[in-house]
């Protein structure tokens, strides 16, 4: 059973997905202030890592990585609503790239499975 990562087309597809996802973040006023970094290259690379993980692609993230990686955003007010919006845009991006609603639900489930670590709870 291929992962969504594989059926979308692997690394090349994820790189395209990341750009599409990042664009959606930047034009959404509810979350753009978290993504409006002066170092956009670095920010996008981190999102590539995240998208690889939630689509079932190869990664070695630990729960500690999730906590450490988001602490500075939690300090700036990152909360459940923002995480919901991220998952919403993730879904939109993947549907646009040909994922099925079932696959998108799997991705949402994977993203939700690290919600507590991301929000440092």
């Amino acid at each position, binding site marked *: 059973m291929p992962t969504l990562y594989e059926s979308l087309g692997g690394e090349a597809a994820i790189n395209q997905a990341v750009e599409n996802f990042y664009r959606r973040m930047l034009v959404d006023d509810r979350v753009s202030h978290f993504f409006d970094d*002066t170092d956009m290259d*670095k920010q996008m*690379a*981190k999102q590539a890592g995240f998208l*690889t993980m939630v689509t079932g692609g*190869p*990664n070695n*993230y630990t729960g500690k*990585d999730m906590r450490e*990686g988001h602490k500075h955003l939690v300090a700036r007010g990152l909360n459940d609503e923002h995480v919901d919006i991220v998952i919403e845009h993730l879904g939109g991006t993947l549907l646009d790239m040909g994922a099925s609603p079932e696959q998108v639900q799997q991705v949402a489930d994977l993203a939700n499975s690290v919600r507590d670590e991301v929000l440092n709870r």
Partner: protein
Amino acid sequence: MPRLTYEGNPIPLEPGQTVLDAALASGIDLPCSCRNGVCQSCLVKAESGFTPPLGSQKGLKASLAQRGYFLACIARPTENLAVIPPDAEAGSFDATITAVDTLSPTVVRVRFAPSASVQFSDYRPGQFVTLLRDDGLARSYSIANLPSAEGDIEIHVRRIERGRMSSWLCDDRPVGATVQLRGPAGDCFYLGDPDEPLLLVGTGTGLAPLVGIARDALTHSHRAPIHLYHGALQREGLYLQSELRALEAAYPSFSVTLCTLNGEADPDDPDAPDGIGKLDELVLERTTGLPAQRIYICGDPGFVHSFRKRLFIAGARMNAIHADAFEIALPPAGATQPCA
């Protein structure tokens, strides 16, 4: 076994081990996260003369790959490798100011000759150097000229109100003074692909790196179109116009659009700007095929950050946008201590 060093210190390397694992096992706190070559948290640099291991530059922006950066978590050395942190300071060398020439009422060109024993030819036009004065004052400027046999460096300096370095250079014109130059550094340089259309956009002395990149591309027989946009508030802020027009006449693939925010269009005036209005609007109106472009944006930080974001949202590729924001180092109003 290949010899691995980090910041000059040897670290033990097991067969097939990655640079990241070797460093962590040695007690070096290298940042990392995905441990699979995607998130780029573990970005490091190979010292000059050493080659990043095969496959360890996957996904990196071309301007980083060409400068020897690589990802430690997927790097398995097969030959000796000296590694340094990604933001390690470059070496510095002595140089003498050989000329200070007026380019406009507010901009001078400063030329440096390196000390006799140094060959500073290992830079790309468009990168920047940090100029260190005898008293320790330090400011960064972009390189506008092509490497020469003598290793001379040319920068453009705008006189900033209360600017310590710029008033020294523009008012005192200290020809003969010895300084130190540290670098080169920076992401804005020609990458050598002759078929990539280039979009060069700058404000103020952002023109310096852009004209360097244009010269570099044209000297290397670049084939695709090169569009350079220079913007200023008023006509007085433009400079190097005749040189740019001469390049335009000499190279059919090179075109220049000079823009001012204010002023009147005047088709009968040969010195009138080509466009009046906001620079970002003018560029977007006149540019097609954004995803295919390699883009360089240099100059005013507010403009650089907002235009980069705007171009990306409009479809430009993130890895194809090279931005250099010219931060001005002034103490905040009311401060009694000058900047270091």
